[in-house]
């Protein structure tokens, strides 16, 4: 009997083959994130290389948009359709909210086997470990209360870097007289919110910050310290150029880099701009914490990849490999060299990193043990997005108007208490 080639049979065999392929699929991990700028992408590549080396397939799902708002919208759609990504870059309270919705899986077994508890500062654990379970794997810590200063500008007027707010304010007229803009500023609402929190911890101190912006305590919000914070913000308002409105933060950094402006108040992600421009800390620019009027303080922002619960063993394996890769000591250093942040682990040898990173890391350890490390408000660690959004409205309205410090503080208190 002649055997006939049956197209249907061939199709069937192919289909069988395909389904077999899915059954024997390699472990994989889909990572949804908004790290699309040069330094950020390079940082994530350090994690990816490690994951791929372990034989896990990496599915990159970037969603452009610096603050992650677009990514958040996309995530909501994915979850609503019942198909969450294996890992997602998220910030602060969002992680806690999703964990409370019961959507985040945990990697407790891995964490206890690898000793995460000992390796991570409490500040980081506050935003990765929810109700005693690790639901998110931290890649790095950013410090938001930083000043980026042009050494050339300071040399030109023969001044030293400010250690108090009085010194800071006294510098402004000197810079103006020398034809240098005292403060480079990007007039976008979120940037003004970060500037506000830097001033809040600088003028009011860590304890005030915690009471007013973490606990949202009415007495602290309406108290005289908040008025003092707004008075300092009003000083800063006078140090920026009239053209600041709408400017992107990296353009403001560029003004410091090319010596047009003396200082910028911005989180330490700004360092990437300086590094990319070939500037070196100490020689060309200085990274200094904002002046602290009341003891020490450190405002931190934790970046971490949160792991959504998966049923497929391949995906679970992928998540475990990803978590191990992120927590790997070499990866943490390589990641943060590219990103300009400091590692989330506190037990690393940082000799390969620059002075800025080493100083920030030492400050984090000191503040963490003193209890003066406070979570970022603008980055929705200290409070929910609703509260932060309402507060941001009040802050940006104040910064772009002629309101008095009293009016500004009152408006902020009203906004926060109404949204609470």
């Amino acid at each position, binding site marked *: 009997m002649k055997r006939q080639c049956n197209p249907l049979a061939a199709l069937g065999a192919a289909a069988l083959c395909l389904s077999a392929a899915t059954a024997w699929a390699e472990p994989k991990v889909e990572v949804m994130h908004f790290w699309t700028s040069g330094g950020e992408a390079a940082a994530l590549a350090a994690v990816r290389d490690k994951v791929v080396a372990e034989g896990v397939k990496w599915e990159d799902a970037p969603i452009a948009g610096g603050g992650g*708002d677009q990514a*958040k*919208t996309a995530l*909501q759609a994915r*979850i*609503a359709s019942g198909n969450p990504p294996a890992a997602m870059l998220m910030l602060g309270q969002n992680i806690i*909210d*999703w964990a409370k*919705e019961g959507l985040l899986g945990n990697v407790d077994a891995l964490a206890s086997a690898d000793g995460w508890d000992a390796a991570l500062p409490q500040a980081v654990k506050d935003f990765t470990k929810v109700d005693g379970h690790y639901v998110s794997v931290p890649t790095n810590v950013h410090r938001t209360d930083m000043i980026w200063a042009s050494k050339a500008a300071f040399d030109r007027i023969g001044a030293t870097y400010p250690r108090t707010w009085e010194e800071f304010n006294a510098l402004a007229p000197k810079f103006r007289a020398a034809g240098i803009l005292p403060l480079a500023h990007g*007039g*976008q*609402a979120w940037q003004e919110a970060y500037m506000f929190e830097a001033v809040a911890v600088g003028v009011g101190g860590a304890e005030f910050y915690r009471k007013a912006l973490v606990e949202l305590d009415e007495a602290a919000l309406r108290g005289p310290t908040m008025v003092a914070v707004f008075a300092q913000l009003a000083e800063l308002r006078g140090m920026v150029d*009239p*053209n*600041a*409105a*709408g400017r992107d933060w990296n353009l403001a950094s560029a003004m410091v880099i090319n010596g047009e402006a003396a200082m910028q108040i911005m989180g330490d992600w700004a360092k990437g701009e300086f590094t990319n421009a070939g500037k070196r800390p100490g020689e060309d620019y200085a990274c200094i914490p904002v002046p602290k009027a009341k003891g020490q303080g450190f405002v931190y922002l934790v970046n971490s990849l949160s792991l959504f619960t998966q049923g497929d063993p391949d995906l679970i394996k992928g998540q475990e490999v990803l978590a191990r890769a992120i927590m790997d000591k070499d990866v943490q250093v390589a990641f943060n060299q590219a990103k300009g942040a400091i590692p989330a682990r506190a037990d690393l040898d940082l000799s390969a990193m620059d002075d800025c990173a080493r100083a920030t890391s030492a400050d984090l350890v000191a503040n963490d043990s003193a209890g003066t490390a406070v979570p970022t408000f603008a980055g929705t660690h200290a409070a*929910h*997005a*609703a509260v*932060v*959004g*309402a507060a941001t*409205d009040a802050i*940006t*309205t104040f*910064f*772009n*108007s002629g309101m008095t410090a009293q009016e500004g503080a009152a408006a902020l208190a009203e906004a926060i208490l*109404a949204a609470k």
Partner: protein
Amino acid sequence: MALDTMTDFRTRLQDWLPKLVLAPSFAVTLLFVYGFIAFTVVLSFTGSKMLPRFDFVGFENYAKLFALQHWHIALANIAIFASLYIVICTSIGLLLAILLDQKIRGEGVLRPIYLYPMALSFIVTGTAWKWFLDPGIGLERVMRLWGWESFSFTWIKSNDLALYCIVIAAVWQTSGFVMAMFLAGLRGIDNEILKAAQIDGASNWQLYRRIVIPLLRPAFLSAFVILSHLAIKSYDLVVALTGGGPGRSTEMPATFMYSYTFTRNQMGIGASSAVIMLMTIAAIMVPYLYAELKEKK
């Protein structure tokens, strides 16, 4: 017998075919437009935060919404923006159409020139005008480089005037389109009427005021309907041009709705603001459409 069934089938097919062909788009519209409007209305009465949730809270979201100063700013902004935008666009469009209708040479070249801005997306318009209006790189700087040292145009950086920059950009984008609509209307007017009026000794001004413009009523209707919905959904232009700033001075209901629904985890309030937007536009459009369309009969 066979022939009978055949014709029967044909007539029935003729009867059903239009309905069959229209059915998919009808179903899609029903679901994705009216279905989601209904869904939004339902959401606005729930305490939804991050994800839709169906715990009904009555009118709480509306109460919260109208307690927000931010929302009142957005409402005031859209009122100013929409009225200026509609009035200026309509007048410029009408004027351009009348001027182009004077049987001038090169009309075929001029018409697309005025019409082309409409081919751009609002994002492109917004970005281009952002650069053009920026004092540091745009008009002001160019004027100063050309020697007019005292020239100053800083509206886009001003709390009070930035809104008018959005009006300028939006008018630039759409007036050509409105012109095209009026031009079509003008071409549709019967020449006999105009000639009769001229014989009766009507001046040009009287001709336009008493005859042409009243005859353009249908074009006014289309222009109004299109411009008012463009105004209320102005989101991309604002985001590209000012980002809602300086401060929050150019916030619009559409940008408000997006930020509350998607970035601030207050889906309930966001949904209620969307419902208010829909009701506002309905309150303006429905009586207008009703009055205009009723007179036709």
